């Protein structure tokens, strides 16, 4: 097996991975950086983010307000030292992107424009029409091309971390076009592998979001944190699950049920605000968890609209007018028109909540360091505890930047004065990966089909770990996912070819997703309270006495994972009431 020696290996070349690579290259041009990704950088799912990125820039805004919005939006499960660091770094990172050429929308005077977003008390979301993530990703990717010290390994599927002497010292990866394994010996590894939304059948996530990075760290001994918090975005297209950005509502779109009633006012987000004059932090600009939960209640009450794609509510943007829609929401118009046949200028568009984002992930601290020395993580795959129990829209794009860079700086600190690596031990670890893959290829007694297992996993997650959860459903989910993990050991490959074998990669991705799914179900079952995106029908209240803490899930091979808890860092904002009613502000 070929060995590639490098200083820092980065797994994942989306927003966080690219930001980390650039930070490394800028800080120390002598560092050798290996940027490893299973897709070409511009295919990374950062490109699908639409609405924008939050950072305090305007004179009427303040860091304190961004802090309060984030902590309250996260239902007090955010680590407040982390939030503090984040809000101060956010504008710097967004300005840095501006200097690198990101085409942010502008005010008439040439300063950057901001738009309102859900759960935010002030307009602070920087945006590039409704393709903000796309522009951020491409700006980062194109900027990265000028640094000769960044060596890209595009379409390399990362397999296992190399851990020796209690430190992470590299990773094995398969070159997808040849099927050959390589080992990367690195002084530090940064995982920026994205989320795992594809474990659900109905998701805004691209096919690549299968939690490989999370699962890799988890198997290597780093715990996954707060995995039960899965965000449903309130407004997805009911057939494809494509995202219609929160900016639809930020710009003034309204949600109505089959009676034409703006039902959010019935769920603590009223009173009704005038149509076309969105008010911050109330009604349609409530936080995602509350808005998605309101849909569930409307569904129970029979207030949803029955469409050929299932039960929906309506997102009405007609009053915005064609000019504003074309200027601010061109992608939304195209998506609804192409995939649903609805022109949002002329008709309200049916939508329903869709799995969008994982608040949980590889446990990291504010320095983007995992408990495993030498391993750092950033972006959706990490849980730095910025987002708590519910992420506010437009915080995640900034999270990529802030913690991508921070992971790079922490990695540089880590690699100073390291003891010499034990190459033989690393080679032996890499050999284990080789054997795992060979075994999968040569397995002749396999009985389980990959697509069959995948379908069962998705159905289980949808049925038992949805917007509202119960003891009974979660029990079923835990045992079913556990069973699927056992059956996965007998999965059989149909395709035994070496070149670009997507049957193999889909099987490996399924393994990652099952690991992540188990952490989600186990965490959800253990958390007997309702907080943010984790809502229990049998424990309807938030329980700060017992659950103001992070769920830490530890991998135990094929056994059920071990769960323990970590205290939430509270610095200045004691748990309070999340208030999204507009009437007493």
């Amino acid at each position, binding site marked *: 097996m070929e060995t590639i020696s490098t200083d820092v290996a980065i797994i994942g070349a989306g927003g966080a991975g690219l930001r980390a690579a650039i930070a490394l290259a800028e800080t120390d041009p002598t560092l050798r950086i290996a940027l490893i990704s299973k*897709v*070409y950088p*511009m*295919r*990374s*799912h950062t*490109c*699908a983010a639409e609405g924008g990125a939050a950072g305090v820039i305007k004179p009427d805004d303040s860091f304190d307000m961004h802090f309060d919005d984030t902590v309250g939006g996260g239902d007090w499960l955010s680590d407040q030292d982390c939030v503090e660091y984040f809000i101060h770094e956010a504008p710097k990172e967004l*300005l*840095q992107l*501006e*200097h*690198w*050429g990101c*085409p*942010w*929308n*502008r*005010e*008439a*005077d*040439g*300063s*950057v424009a901001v738009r309102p977003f859900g759960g935010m008390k002030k307009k602070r979301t920087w945006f590039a029409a409704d*393709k903000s993530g*796309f*522009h951020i990703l*491409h700006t980062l990717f*194109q*900027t990265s*091309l000028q640094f000769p010290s960044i060596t890209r390994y*595009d379409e390399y599927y990362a397999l296992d971390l190399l851990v020796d002497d209690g430190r992470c010292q590299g990773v094995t990866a398969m070159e997808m*076009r040849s099927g050959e394994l390589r080992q990367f010996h690195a002084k530090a590894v940064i995982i920026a592998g994205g989320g795992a939304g594809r474990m659900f059948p109905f998701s805004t996530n*691209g*096919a*690549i979001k299968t939690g490989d990075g999370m699962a890799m760290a988890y198997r290597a001994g780093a715990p996954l944190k707060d995995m039960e918090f899965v965000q449903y975005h309130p407004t997805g297209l009911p*057939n*494809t699950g*494509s*995202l219609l950005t929160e900016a639809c509502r930020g710009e003034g779109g309204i949600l109505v049920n089959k009676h034409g009633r703006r039902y959010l006012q019935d769920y603590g987000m009223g009173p009704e605000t005038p149509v076309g004059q969105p008010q911050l932090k109330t009604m349609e600009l409530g936080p995602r968890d509350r808005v998605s939960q309101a849909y569930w209640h409307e569904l129970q009450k029979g207030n949803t609209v*029955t*469409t*050929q*794609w299932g039960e929906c509510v309506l997102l009405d943007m007609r009053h915005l007018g064609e000019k504003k829609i074309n200027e601010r929401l061109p*992608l939304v118009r*195209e*998506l609804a028109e*192409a*995939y649903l*046949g609805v022109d949002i200028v002329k008709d309200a568009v049916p939508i329903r909540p869709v799995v969008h984002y994982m608040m949980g992930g590889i446990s990291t601290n504010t320095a983007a360091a995992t408990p495993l020395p030498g391993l750092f993580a950033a972006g959706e795959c990490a849980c730095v505890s910025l987002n708590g129990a519910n992420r506010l829209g437009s915080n995640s794009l900034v999270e990529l930047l802030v913690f991508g860079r921070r992971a790079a700086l922490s990695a540089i600190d880590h690699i100073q004065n390291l003891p010499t690596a034990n190459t033989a031990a690393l080679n032996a670890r890499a050999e284990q990966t080789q054997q795992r893959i060979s075994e999968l290829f040569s397995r002749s007694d396999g009985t389980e089909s*990959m*697509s069959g297992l995948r379908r069962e996993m998705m159905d289980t997650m949808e049925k038992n770990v949805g917007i509202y959860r119960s003891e009974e459903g979660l029990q079923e989910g835990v045992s079913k996912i556990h069973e699927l993990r056992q059956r996965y050991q007998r999965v059989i490959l*149909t*395709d035994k*070819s*070496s*070149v*670009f074998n*997507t*049957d193999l990669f889909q099987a490996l991705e399924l393994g990652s997703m099952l690991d992540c799914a188990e952490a989600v179900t186990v965490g959800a079952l253990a958390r007997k309270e309702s907080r943010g995106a984790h809502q229990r029908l049998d424990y309807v209240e938030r329980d700060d006495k017992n659950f103001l803490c992070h769920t830490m899930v530890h991998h135990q091979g094929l056994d059920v994972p071990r769960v323990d808890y970590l205290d939430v860092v509270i610095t200045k904002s004691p748990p309070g009431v999340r208030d999204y009613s507009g009437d007493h502000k």
Partner: protein
Amino acid sequence: MTPLKERLVQLEVLRYNPDTDTEAHFQRYEVVCQEEWVVLDALNKVKADIDPTLNFRWSCHMAVCGSCGMMINGEPKLSCHAFLRSYEGVIRVEPLAHFPIERDLVTAPDDFMEKLKRVKPYIIPKEKKPISEGEYKQTPAQLMKFRQYSMCINCMLCYAACPEYGLTPDFIGPAALTLAHRYNLDSRDGGRLARQEVVATHEGVWDCTFVGACSEVCPAHVDPASALQQMKITSSIDWIVEHLIPGGKS
């Protein structure tokens, strides 16, 4: 509510496996699809239910990641944006033209990636300033000047459509050159002359014979043909200034 309409779709897919094949061949699949599906959905159903050995790239299913470019009935398309309702009869699916085929519908984009890098697609600042001094001011009009050209998703459909690229592989090609133009037009940028060394050359804009196919197939409405013609004009003006005006220097 009426249920979704279903339809039996016939796909003819180009297969190639370097492990076993010396040449590519077509394979026929029949799969029941919903009328509102896209070609990618049909391929995914084939892969899940009929033939797991069929290989293709895809991710976002919303025409923004650029992974799933293919030739569909001879036309370069994002398969996630090629609606079954637009096709009758057998749908012929091939890998993107003008790129080497690794396997099945998977092509090798190395040449494009290399060319993208050559055109220096990043801000070369006119005047550097620290982050602490805030943003570079840019009016909405200055933004609109280049915004269209910043929309390229690097899907390479334009390369598959461009006969010039097919015949002259040295040609830098539509998407990469358009990105150079995008940065040249950005009010924050001062790197045009540095890019001209690559762009204002035979294998740069002067290899373009203005077939215009790039703009016709672009799924992001970028209009590379327009960008390249504009660059030819600027290059010509540079040449005139340099060679015909005494003391002129481009």
